[in-house]
């Protein structure tokens, strides 16, 4: 890494940390109540003004040219405070990457060159649905005046806030699905109520119903799985960075608490069973950081396999760490006033990023070792 790059990293590191502490933290608890309370837009606007939604874009569009290491740095710092915002940013990057994979640079550039506003910078995407696993419910039909989409696209992250969205839909005659870009502000787009979910509450998700909605085919017909697979390989590590952020936050709070809470006449951090819990957490946090750093620095085909190999265990470990993070705080850890319970939900929710956890594992071994 040359000096300029180092400086860039440093700058990203410090701005993302500052954003987390100064902007995200004050709104974290309140925004986690969504959809049972309003979602304060300040954090989104601020993230937008800091160009966080552009991170993954090519340099010509104001981005970092798809630098996974840098993206991971930002997401990890943000997720340490609030994984929801990190997930919002990652969703955007996933949608952008699908367009990049499909060779739709012009369209992408068009989106980002428009009169700038948050709404236009966001691209909704079903981040937790993997078209390689499940056939989308949404159907596409070729009409004289273009493609029309009908049916339900479930779990559209940012679907209630974004002007553009990428969906998967299938032409009845095709074996594989295709990707489409849709403008949200059309009469035939019916945005459902916010989905009530386990975690990542401030990363609003909706089901969207389409009724003969015009959609723009992204890339080529029937190649959604391929684009998705490539996007997955490029961005899977960013999901792990979010998990690592959750872990780091959980560990930091647990450590701090264990050094102040007294039971049995001493700080709980002095009980060896608590020390073991802390040790397991610390090891997993550090392992995650190292794995992300290692895989993030790789390039080529290895990079994809290593990114997947690094990410899957990190997503699992985040669930363990967040659980221990509650445990160390005892009853207090179970309360919404402390952030541990939120991390516990977020970590478990995040495990389904890019699809069903066990299937991702099976898919990994199949693709690495050419199993049938």
């Amino acid at each position, binding site marked *: 890494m040359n000096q300029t790059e180092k400086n860039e990293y440093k700058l990203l590191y410090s701005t993302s940390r500052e954003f987390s502490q100064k902007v995200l933290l004050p709104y974290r608890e309140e925004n986690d109540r969504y959809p*049972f309370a309003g979602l304060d837009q300040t954090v989104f606007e601020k993230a937008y003004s800091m160009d966080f939604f552009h991170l993954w874009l090519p340099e010509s569009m104001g981005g970092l040219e798809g630098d996974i290491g840098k993206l991971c740095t930002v997401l990890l710092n943000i997720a340490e405070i609030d994984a929801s915002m990190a997930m919002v940013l990652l969703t955007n990057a996933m949608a952008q990457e699908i367009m990049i994979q499909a060779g739709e640079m012009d369209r992408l550039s068009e989106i980002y060159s428009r009169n700038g506003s948050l709404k236009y910078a966001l691209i909704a995407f079903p981040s*937790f*649905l*993997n078209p*390689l*696993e*499940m*056939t989308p419910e949404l159907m596409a039909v070729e009409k004289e005046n273009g493609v029309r989409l009908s049916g339900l696209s*479930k*779990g559209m992250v940012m679907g209630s806030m974004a002007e553009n969205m990428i969906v998967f839909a299938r032409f009845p005659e095709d074996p594989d699905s295709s990707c489409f870009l849709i403008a949200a502000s059309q009469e035939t787009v019916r945005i459902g109520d916010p*989905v*009530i*979910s*386990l*975690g990542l509450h401030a990363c609003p998700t909706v089901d969207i119903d389409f009724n003969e909605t015009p959609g723009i085919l992204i890339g080529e017909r029937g190649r959604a799985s391929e684009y998705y697979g490539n996007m997955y390989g490029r961005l899977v590590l960013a999901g792990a960075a979010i998990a690592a952020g959750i872990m780091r936050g959980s560990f930091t709070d647990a450590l701090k608490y264990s050094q102040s809470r*007294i*039971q*049995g*006449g*001493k700080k709980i951090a*002095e*009980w*060896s*069973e*608590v020390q073991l*819990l802390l040790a397991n957490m610390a090891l997993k946090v550090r392992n995650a950081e190292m794995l992300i750093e290692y895989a993030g620095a790789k390039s080529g085909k290895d990079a994809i396999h290593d990114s997947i190999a690094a990410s899957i265990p990190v997503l699992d470990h985040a*669930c363990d760490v967040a*659980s221990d993070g*509650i*445990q160390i705080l*005892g*009853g207090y*850890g*179970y*309360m*919404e*006033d402390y952030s541990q*319970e939120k991390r*516990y*939900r977020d970590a*478990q*929710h995040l*495990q*389904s990023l890019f*699809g*069903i*956890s*066990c*299937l991702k594992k*099976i898919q990994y071994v199949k693709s690495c070792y050419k199993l049938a």
Partner: protein
Amino acid sequence: MLKKTFFPGNADPSGLSFPDMNCNLMAISRQPRAITKEVRKAIKLAREFNETVVRPNALDMDRKIHEDPDYLPWEWVREANRQGFYTMWIPKMFGGKGYSFTSIAYFLEEISTCCVGMANLIGVHYLGFATLIAAWNLALTRRISLEVIKGEKTDTPCLLDFAITEPGSGTDTSEADLADKGNLACHAARENGGYRVNGTKIFISNAHFSTWHLVLGYEDIKKPSDTFLFFAVRKDASGFSLGRKERKMGQKACPASELILRDCFVPDEQVCVDQRQTANLSTSHRDIYQIIFDSICSSSKAGVCSMGAGISRGVYEEVLRFASNTRINGSLMMNLEWVQCRLADMLRNVAVSRLMYAEINFANGMFGLNKMLQIKPLYYLFRYLPIKVVQVLSAPMTRFPVFQKIVRKMQFDWKKREELERTTGWASMAKFTGSDLAVENCRIGLSLMGQTGTRHENRVEKFFRDSKLLQIYEGTNQLNRLEAFKSLIGRNRYDIQMFEDR
């Protein structure tokens, strides 16, 4: 000191005796067979209640409390009261329906398959009741039981809760060794005719619904286990108030709240047990502290384990449904080996949890809190005689102090140490097994269902949030492991020190 009648000669090389590891076999011929019928009846009642009240409303209730964290689900408490669930496990001698405590675990498992918060709304009441029973204060138990029964008849629920945790003392409270080093603050100053109490209790389940709070206090906060007292405070007592209702991650239907006692006077008639009441016993007050705690927890931890079994089963059933209706790349999930094996794991977890609470039930029936009422002749007498007759027959027991003294002598002075350790050890193991497996099943479930599992309407995410609490209350699972060690592994080894980590 507790009587030590256990000799390593009876034991296998690890120091465990045949009854230690085979409570079930010990119980085969000695426990009344009719308990099985009671269990079936309890399960049937729970299923009916689930179908009409819990399952159709569990998600809405959870959502409602998400939306308004101060909402109190009185409608559920009233319905449970109407169904008679708050008197069902009160012994007939106190006017209740007299179901054996064994059946409550099965009942709670069933309710927990739909909503463990609802199970707690019933279970915690019996935790309060177990405190009365474990302190063996028959007159007070009768008085409070009669109010619960009246509450059932008049459609005004009269619930009990159990309040030991304080802001500065959670884990410390339930172990005398830890309590004595701890930072306990609920002070009860002796006054003419009673105690003047000052202190705060936190995280008290059902507090907002309870008429009677069973509270733990100390005459000398520097010597808590030597000077402890349990007392009952009525919700309308002067100097008593409810503080904040916690905002919990899960089990939202069951509120957990703060109790505030400020110069609250507790008359002697409401003291379940204190130093004065145990002065004539040969067992020290400190040992009685541990006996009472262990007896209460041996009973209530069976309940936590059964709630864990309920959650494990609830998730398992949801995943089964999902796998039967979902296709992965064209194949029905149910037909994929990795799914089949995970479902087998999940079912195993349900079964193991159930076996664990069955074993602690056997232990409690043979050696613990339920022992007396499960002695066959007494059991059948109480079972087949009408409540009124049982009450008349047992009235002298609750009226004349001499009976109270005899019962306490039996329960505290003649209590065999190994029996207490057996029930405590099994209860702790059941508690951490049932709760750990419940969390595990939720995690397996979520890892199988992907984003579908994370959606509220599919129930599994609620189970996941709810299950974590089982690892925390009734002593964290860390403490329960230590208690299992102390009671079953380290008990006869004089080189063992507990809570002396350096």
